[in-house]
């Protein structure tokens, strides 16, 4: 059945019926090609999405001080709440079980100068834990450490783009920069996946900033990280307890919604994950739709091909072709064409995706790709359905009496 002779016969038929071969091959190749491209774009969209929303650590709460809205314990409303070092210590002491780390974040804006170049940058005065919270990646040097916080050192960690802006290709490490007329030594340069803005920050120890600002003990916002082991339920409970604890400390009415804002990344995470899986569903749906369109296309072509060949098949049967040999011939031909064309479409699609790379970043398609497994699976699926689609009309053609087929002028 798969002898050299039958292949010879098939290649012969294929090469002498170029239009027919092209039509069926083109349908399959196009189907797979579009599938690969769409699936790749879908994945690219997912990548962009993840870059936007999954940049920071997911086990953190952010506490922002606000203004009280309800008078409580003899305090008037509209009182400004501020966190201080005592809050930091108190949370550490009271939530040792749930707490992984805690860091304040004091946000300021300064003119930063190196030699003759200067620019305005955001400054974040933080504790060492902040590195994990923002997933800051050190390119060289180190981050703010515990020693810096204790000694209130004038060390700074700067973003990659600040080094680029101010240092003109020089190595910033060990150099001194002026931050608001005070000299700081650069001890580290970082990068961040969160985008350009994230790479134009300066980190200094929060204690140093407090010293500069007349030895204040205020700490701005608080970032509290819980141990991932406690899970979603544990995190929710921790959130509640933490809120109650802070309200009590600051004499805030328990129903006051304005005094302290708490943003729970775990909540965001769940929402984001839902959106992410929705994207996945859309991508899958588009993929399946394309495949079905491809299958319908190849089925139509096969029906047409067999119809067109009815007379030829009748002749073949009249001179001795068995029904089985007729079916085998048509199937072998269709499988060969779909396989060859399918892989052309597959590699064409993958090649295009690879060559696109990050050129579509502006359209929120980042690094489009498709799993080789998924792509090969789709191709095999199309080949199988192409064969089934060919089998049904082939079987019908093989059953036609030669006399009927020959009458068909």
């Amino acid at each position, binding site marked *: 059945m798969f002898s050299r002779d039958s292949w010879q016969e098939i290649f012969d038929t294929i090469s002498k019926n170029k239009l027919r071969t092209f039509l069926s091959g083109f349908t399959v190749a196009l189907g797979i090609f579009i599938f690969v491209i769409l699936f790749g774009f879908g994945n690219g969209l997912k990548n962009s999405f993840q870059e936007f929303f999954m940049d920071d650590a997911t086990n953190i709460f952010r506490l922002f001080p606000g203004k009280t809205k309800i008078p409580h314990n003899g305090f008037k409303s509209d009182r400004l709440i501020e966190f201080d070092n005592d809050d930091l210590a108190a949370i550490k002491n009271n939530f040792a079980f749930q707490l992984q780390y805690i860091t304040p974040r004091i946000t300021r804006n300064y003119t930063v100068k190196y030699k003759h170049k200067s620019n305005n940058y955001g400054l974040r005065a933080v504790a060492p834990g902040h590195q994990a919270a923002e997933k800051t990646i050190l390119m060289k040097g180190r981050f703010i450490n515990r020693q810096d916080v204790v000694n209130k050192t004038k060390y700074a960690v700067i973003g990659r783009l600040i080094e680029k802006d101010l240092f003109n290709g020089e190595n910033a490490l060990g150099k001194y920069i002026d931050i608001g007329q005070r000299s700081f030594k650069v001890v580290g340069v970082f990068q961040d996946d969160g985008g350009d803005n994230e790479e134009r920050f300066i980190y200094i120890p929060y204690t140093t900033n407090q010293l500069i600002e007349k030895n204040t003990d205020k700490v701005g916002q608080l970032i509290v990280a819980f141990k991932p082991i406690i899970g979603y339920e544990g995190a929710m409970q921790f959130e509640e307890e933490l809120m109650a604890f802070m309200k009590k400390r600051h004499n805030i009415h328990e129903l006051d919604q304005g005094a302290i804002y708490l943003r729970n990344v775990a909540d965001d995470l769940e929402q984001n994950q839902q959106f992410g899986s929705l994207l996945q569903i859309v991508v899958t749906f588009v993929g399946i739709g394309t495949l079905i369109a491809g299958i319908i296309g190849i089925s139509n072509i096969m029906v047409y091909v067999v119809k067109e060949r009815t007379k030829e098949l009748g002749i073949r049967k009249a*001179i001795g072709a*068995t029904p089985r040999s007729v079916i085998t011939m048509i199937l072998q031909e269709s499988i060969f064409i779909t396989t060859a064309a399918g892989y052309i479409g597959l590699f064409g699609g993958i090649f295009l995706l690879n060559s696109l790379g990050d050129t579509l970043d502006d359209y929120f398609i980042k690094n489009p790709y498709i799993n080789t497994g998924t792509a090969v699976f789709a191709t095999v699926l199309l080949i199988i359905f192409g064969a089934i689609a060919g089998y049904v009309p082939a079987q019908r053609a093989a*059953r036609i009496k*030669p*006399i009927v087929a020959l009458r068909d002028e």
Partner: protein
Amino acid sequence: MIEIKDLHKSYKIGKNLLHVLKGININIEAGELVAIMGSSGSGKSTLLNILGMLDVADKGSYTLDKVPIKDLDETKAAKYRNKFLGFVFQSFNLINYKTALENVTLPLYYQKAGRKERHIKAMQYLEKVGLADWASHLPSELSGGQKQRIAIARALAAEPKVLLADEPTGALDSTTSYEVMQLIQEINDEGKTILVVTHEKDIAHMCKRIVQLKDGVIIEDTKINQVRASEYV
């Protein structure tokens, strides 16, 4: 060679049953050249189709070269056709994307002959019909007479016991017709049994026996003195 007894065949057309063959009895010896004549609707094509195993009779027996032809499924019929029968059609029925040579090799391909053997045999038969020089031409590049001669070469290539020709000259002008008939006579001279369905009297008289069909029965069956086609060419 061919033995047919009490052959009946009817077709359903809508609700009506059309009785086409109403008890045909005929014996054909090896080496005969028989013309089956009759007006359209006489059942001559149906008879040929049954002889060619392209169709199945309702009743009666059919023995071909001492093999009873019955209970045919498609596969068996295909094998018998390939082994016993060669077909020549009015409309030639060559495969249009295959060259003359490839058309002639096709029955040998289905006999599972080797490549070389196929090629040699096919060339041999092309030479026999005088078209060896046209081996690599497509049917579209050949004249009607040439096409029919290719079709005859194809029918002969399988070395069948019986050659069945359905109006072999029906699509040809008279000169070409006589050329084709001359070829058929030559093949018959070598001992091949041939059945020719025709409604042309001059063609029928180039055979050795005329069987006249009318309304599904044989009304006349006579041996005649063959007119050689070469006299006309």
